[in-house]
């Protein structure tokens, strides 16, 4: 059950729409909109909600092998502390971790041991991602491939072993993040 999402705050801040009621109504619940209207940094909270929703969407879609759907408003966020939140979709609840720096917001579903990489300046290219994954897992990049299933959910394929590992990828602006469950030995 992995899912992560990164928001490049520099890029996000360029959106002049993110605080408009029309934009918010498409992605948030009434309760979330109320919270946005009552916080000191509304734009930051919009993008925090967005990253929580996206990360949860990815985990939920992978978990049940669901067809793609663009339904951000169906994911309901409750912020529990500075770095923790709970997101509900239908009858399912997910616990998330969210980190905010001056440059990005990164959120991911908590699911045991994971390897996490956050990089800036990577091109959204397969090659660059694979080489970073190789470094992280200490596997030669030539032996790694990324493939997506019929619902566009990505997995790492370790060549010559038939082994696949789930991977959650996120790219926004100049940031790339990915998350892989740690192989328990």
């Amino acid at each position, binding site marked *: 059950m992995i899912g992560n999402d990164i928001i490049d705050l520099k890029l996000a801040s360029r*959106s002049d*729409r993110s605080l408009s009621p029309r*934009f918010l109504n*498409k992605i948030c619940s009434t309760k979330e909109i109320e919270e946005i209207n009552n916080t000191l940094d509304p734009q930051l909270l919009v993008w925090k909600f*967005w990253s929580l929703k*996206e990360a949860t969407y990815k985990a939920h879609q992978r978990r049940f092998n669901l067809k793609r759907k*663009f339904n951000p*408003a169906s994911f309901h966020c409750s912020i529990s502390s500075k770095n923790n939140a709970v997101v509900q979709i239908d009858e399912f609840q997910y616990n998330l971790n969210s980190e905010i720096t001056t440059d990005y917001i990164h959120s991911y579903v908590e699911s045991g041991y994971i390897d996490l990489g956050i990089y800036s300046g990577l091109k*959204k290219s397969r090659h660059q991602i694979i080489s970073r994954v190789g470094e992280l897992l200490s596997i030669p990049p030539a032996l790694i491939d990324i493939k997506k299933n019929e619902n*566009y959910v990505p997995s790492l394929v370790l060549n010559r072993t038939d082994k696949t590992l789930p991977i959650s990828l996120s790219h926004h602006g100049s940031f790339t993040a990915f998350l892989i469950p740690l192989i328990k030995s």
Partner: protein
Amino acid sequence: MNKDEIINRLRNIVKPYVQREEGLNDFNEETDFLNDLQINSANLVDVVLDVEDEFDIEIDNDSMEGMLTVGDAKDIIQKKLSLN
């Protein structure tokens, strides 16, 4: 409004958000916003809002849910226009 005109207008709407320009060369009903055009998902909301403005329609969240390809968008626009 005929199908080709809708698709043509859609092409102009998505253009500023496209990160994979080649995807615009072969722009048809099968074109996938996220995979073929690599529009990031936050910008997909912008696309929906721009479509509302361009065609003077309202796209409710239930319709937005299934708006993943140019064909999906075209179908939704045609449906909403027929109700106007």
